C-alpha cells in the first residue's frame, strides 16, 4: 500500500493523526477550563461527557487509534531517518531548524509516558486513592475534588509541568509541519505558520499549566 509504506504517504498519515491529536488537546483544554467556573461547572461537564454513553467509547477508540498510528509511524520514520544518516560531520551547524524540530521523537515519547500517567491519575483513577471521593449519591467521582486534591502533592504537579513543556515543544514544530506535509503551505504562508505554530504551542502550555499552578496557589477551595 502506497499510503502506509511510502515516505510521503506515511508523512501524510502523521499529519492527519497529528490534526486529530492537536484538535483533541485544544478541545480538552476548553473542557478543562470549566474548572474556572467552579465545582458545579466542572462536575456538570464531566457528567455530560459520561451521559454520552456508547459515544464515549467510539470517541476513545478513535483517539486511541490515532494515537497508536501516530506513534508507530513516528518511531518507524525516525528510525529510518537515523539509518539514512550514519555519522555526523565533525562540525555541524544548523541554519534554520530548531530544538523542537530536532527532538520530535523525544518529546513524542515523553508525551506518550505522560498520557499513560494522566490516564492512570484521572481516568482509570488508581495512582492516588485518597483523591477519588463520590459526588453525592450520583455514583460518580467528584471531579472538582479529584482535580484540586490531585494537585496537592508535588509529584503530580511536576509531572504535569514537564509533560506540558514537551507538548509545547512537540506542537511548536508539529503544527506548522502538518500544513507543509499536507501541501497547504507556500513561501508566503510558511514563515507566518512557523510563528503561529509556536503560538499554538504556547497557548496550550499556558492554558494547561494554569490549572495545576492555580490549584497550588490555593485559588480553588474544597
Amino acid at each position, binding site marked *: 500500500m502506497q499510503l502506509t509504506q511510502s*515516505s510521503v504517504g506515511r*508523512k501524510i498519515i502523521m499529519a492527519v493523526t497529528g490534526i486529530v491529536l492537536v484538535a483533541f488537546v485544544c478541545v480538552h483544554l476548553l473542557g478543562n477550563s470549566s474548572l474556572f467556573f467552579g465545582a458545579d461547572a466542572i462536575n456538570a461537564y464531566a457528567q455530560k461527557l459520561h451521559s454520552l454513553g456508547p459515544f464515549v467509547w467510539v470517541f476513545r477508540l478513535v483517539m486511541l487509534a490515532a494515537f497508536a498510528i501516530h506513534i508507530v509511524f513516528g518511531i518507524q520514520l525516525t528510525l529510518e531517518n537515523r*539509518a539514512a544518516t550514519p555519522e555526523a*560531520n565533525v562540525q555541524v551547524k544548523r541554519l534554520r*531548524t530548531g530544538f523542537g*524540530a530536532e527532538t520530535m521523537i523525544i518529546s513524542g515519547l515523553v508525551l506518550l509516558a505522560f498520557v499513560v500517567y494522566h490516564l492512570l491519575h484521572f481516568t482509570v483513577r488508581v495512582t492516588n486513592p485518597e483523591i477519588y471521593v463520590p459526588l453525592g449519591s450520583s455514583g460518580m467521582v467528584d471531579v472538582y475534588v479529584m482535580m484540586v486534591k490531585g494537585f496537592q502533592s508535588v509529584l503530580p504537579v511536576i509531572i504535569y509541568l514537564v509533560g506540558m513543556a514537551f507538548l509545547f515543544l512537540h506542537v511548536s514544530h508539529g503544527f506548522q509541519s502538518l500544513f*507543509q*506535509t499536507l501541501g497547504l503551505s507556500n513561501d508566503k504562508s*510558511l514563515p507566518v505558520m512557523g510563528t503561529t505554530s509556536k503560538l499554538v504551542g504556547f497557548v496550550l502550555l499556558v492554558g494547561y499549566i494554569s490549572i495545576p499552578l492555580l490549584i497550588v496557589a490555593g485559588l480553588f477551595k474544597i
Partner: protein
Amino acid sequence: MKLKLHVWRQNGPNDKGRMEVYDAPDVSPDQSFLEMLDDVNLVLARQGKDVIAFDHDCREGICGMCSQVINGVPHGGQERTTVCQLHMREFKDGDEIFIEPWKARAFPVIKDLVVDRGGLEKIMQAGGYTSCHTGGVADGNALPIGKDIADYSMDAAECIGCGACVAACPNSSAMLYTSAKVAQLAVLPQGKVEAHRRVMAMTEAATEHGFGNCSNHYECQASCPKGIDVKFIAKLNREYMKALIP
C-alpha cells in the same frame, strides 16, 4: 593571510576516515575556496604526499560538482553560493576552517571530500523526464504558457543537483531535490501527462536508494546554493495526494 585547515581524509568507502590538519600559509582574499585548496595540494604534491581529493568541474556555480561541508554547513553558508563561488575574502587571517564531505548513507565517500552522488541520478532516472518526442525547436508561442507558470517552473529548474540539501538535512532526505524536479515538470503541459507516475516513482526511488524522509526542518533551503524553496516540497506533497486518488 594564513589559515589552518582541518580536512577530512578517507581512503575509500570502507576506510574509517579522520580529520587532518594542513597549513595554508599564503592565501589571497581574491582566491576562490577551490583555488586555495589547489595551492595546498600543489605543496602536498611537491612533497610527494597524497593530495586532497575534491570534486569540481565548472567552477562557476552551475554544475553542482563542488561538494564540501565548510565549518559545518554545506557550501559554507554564504547565501546562494556554491563552494567554487565562495571567496577567501569571507575568511580572515588566522581562521581555522573545517572541510568535510557530504555525509549521508546514500552518498558513500569515494575519497576524502569526493562522494558518490549517483543516488540523485537514480531518482532522476525514475521519472525526471517526459516521454515524448520534442522534435525540433518549437515556435515561440506555439504552446502558450503563462509567465507566472514559466517562472515557477524555471525557479524549480534552477536546481543544479549538487546534493547540499541532502547533506544539510538531519534525515539525509533528498526531498528538496526531488520536489524541484517534480514541480518543474508538473506545471507544464508536457510534464502534466506523466505527473502521477512521476511523483510516485521519484519518491519511491529516493527511499530505495537510502535517502531519509522529510521532517520539515527546512535546513535544505537554507544551504541550497540556488535558493530552491521548500514550497516545492509542499507542491510535491500535493502532487503525491493527487496521484493517490485514482
